[in-house]
């Protein structure tokens, strides 16, 4: 029987997605515009036998999430820009120690306290490079309320599969938006933690490969578990900061275990890109404006296509490649100044003109703004 559609807020959909994914631990510190996630989970977690902790700050929140995950429970936290900044050091720890966990960042205007109640996309680079050192990151960007639900589930699955922190990068617009959706729990495929498929005594001698990443055994299980932020030997798990080969092996592995699986991880939506002369690269809430602008332009007979990254990191280089091969111009509207436009430009490598459209006043980019730019670029093309 089809589930009835219900009016759901983006943040509510994230909370329900976490529960549906099997998360049973939340630690956080409330901050606009993410607060509803904590508020809802403070009620929902106890209902499903999980735990909710309000911590003293975001550093402690991230620490608690890592601890819960090491103990075997799927765990998440939710925050916004200022809190996300505080979490960065321990996000690096989770990447280094290969602890699965999910961090939801509902972006607001910044830097600092900035525009607490207004949307922004200013954290797209922070989500990739906010923590220090070489590491890889998986970042998913919802554009609808339904995606707030499905991508939170995906985030948990990816984090378990690749033993890595995964970030759901929402924004104040998507997080506070309400849409009529049916959140279908029965259709979901969920990753389970499991144990390494070897004898506990052999665990020291078995090592993950890029194609066979062993699950992280829980603290207190039959396996001897060691978690550390120092460089460690991937085979024994022992700290070893003196051997450059050990450090290189770990460093490259932490990066490649994600990039090797890029094709499986990266998801994009491509609309009207086959015959496009002008491409739009837009993500999150701005992708909705881009889609409206694309439809308006096509009504006027201008062949515009939309590339919408659902996975923002790893960067969807392949999809940008495909677009760059046949469009003349790629327009990148985003609620920041050129953060992803630079990345698009690097991937395009001169094959098409890249035009950025930035906005940092706490307002969503409008379809009219994008249409205006499309018209200008069409004039340039026709004048050639």
């Amino acid at each position: 029987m089809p589930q009835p559609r219900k009016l759901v807020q983006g943040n509510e959909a994230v909370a329900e997605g976490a529960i549906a994914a099997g998360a049973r631990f939340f630690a956080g510190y409330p901050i606009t515009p993410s607060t509803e996630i904590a508020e809802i989970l403070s009620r929902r977690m106890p209902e499903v036998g999980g735990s909710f902790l309000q911590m003293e700050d975001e550093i402690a929140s991230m620490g608690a999430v890592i601890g819960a995950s090491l103990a075997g429970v799927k765990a998440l936290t939710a925050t916004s820009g200022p809190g996300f900044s505080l979490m960065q050091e321990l996000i690096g720890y989770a990447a280094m120690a290969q602890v699965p966990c999910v961090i939801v960042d509902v972006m607001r205007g910044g830097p600092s306290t900035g525009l607490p109640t207004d949307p922004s996309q200013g954290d797209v680079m922070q989500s990739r490079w906010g923590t220090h050192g070489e590491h890889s990151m998986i970042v998913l960007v919802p554009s609808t309320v339904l995606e707030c639900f499905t991508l939170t589930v995906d985030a948990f699955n990816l984090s378990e599969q690749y033993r890595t922190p995964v970030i759901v990068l929402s924004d104040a617009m998507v997080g506070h938006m309400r849409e009529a959706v049916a959140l279908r729990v029965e259709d979901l495929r969920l990753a389970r933690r499991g144990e390494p498929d070897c004898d506990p005594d052999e665990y020291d001698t078995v090592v993950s490969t890029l194609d066979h990443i062993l699950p992280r055994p829980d603290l207190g299980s039959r396996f001897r578990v060691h978690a550390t932020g120092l460089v460690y030997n991937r085979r024994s798990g022992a700290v070893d900061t003196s051997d450059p080969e050990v450090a290189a092996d770990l460093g490259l592995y932490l990066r490649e275990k994600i990039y090797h699986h890029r094709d499986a991880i990266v998801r994009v939506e491509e609309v009207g890109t086959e015959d496009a002369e002008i491409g739009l690269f837009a993500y999150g809430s701005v992708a909705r404006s881009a889609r409206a602008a694309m439809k308006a332009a096509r009504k006027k007979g201008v062949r515009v296509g939309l590339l919408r990254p659902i996975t923002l990191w790893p960067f969807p280089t392949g999809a940008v490649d495909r677009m760059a091969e046949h469009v003349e111009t790629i327009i990148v509207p985003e609620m920041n100044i050129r953060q992803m436009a630079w990345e698009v430009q690097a991937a395009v490598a001169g094959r098409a003109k890249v035009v950025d459209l930035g906005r940092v006043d706490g307002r969503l980019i409008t379809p009219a703004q994008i249409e205006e730019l499309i018209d200008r670029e069409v004039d340039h093309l026709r004048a050639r």
Partner: protein
Amino acid sequence: MADDGRLEVRVSGSGGQGILLAAAVLADAVAAAGREVVQTQSYGPEARGGASQAEVIASLEEIDYPEVDLADLSLCLSQAAFDKYARLTRAGGLVLYDSGLVDEMEIPGRRLRGLPFTDTAVHDLGAKVVTNIVSLGALCAFVPWLPPDAVDGAVAARVPARFKDLNLRALEAGRRLVELAEAGIAIEGAEDHDARGAAPVAEAEDRPIECEPCADER
């Protein structure tokens, strides 16, 4: 309303008046009526006071851009909200406002309708807190395809059980205000100013920031 059945509504007032709740209830009702709906909001960092506004878009088609530029239907529950948002109503659109709180002025091309929402909540229902629901009842009376049952159901589902009857009576009181006003029966405190001659509508202010040229143009 456009061909795709699109209706854009803006509800505005000050923080604490229940603006966001009224918009969420309206969106619930639209969803129950089987249409596509998106509801967004903007408010300041204050818990009380400050400007608060919420928007609801209903459509028979998928809704891309989630915000309202010029509304078909505006509801203003404070002077500041009226001053800021009444003019962001399309030509021929309707501005509903609380006649007890707003000293309105003429806005060319829009129909203005002042009704005593707060007075009705205080004197007829004995609860100022339901002013938002009284005004919601009035607003929904101007949306012919929205069944009153859907609005009643949405309110009943959103408010605590012990306040359900009060809120349903508030909705009904709001509808009644519109009925009387439309029938031309005098309501104490009500004001009606039909637009005379549609003057050109000023476009909503929407200035993009100025960016330096993109790198490949340098």
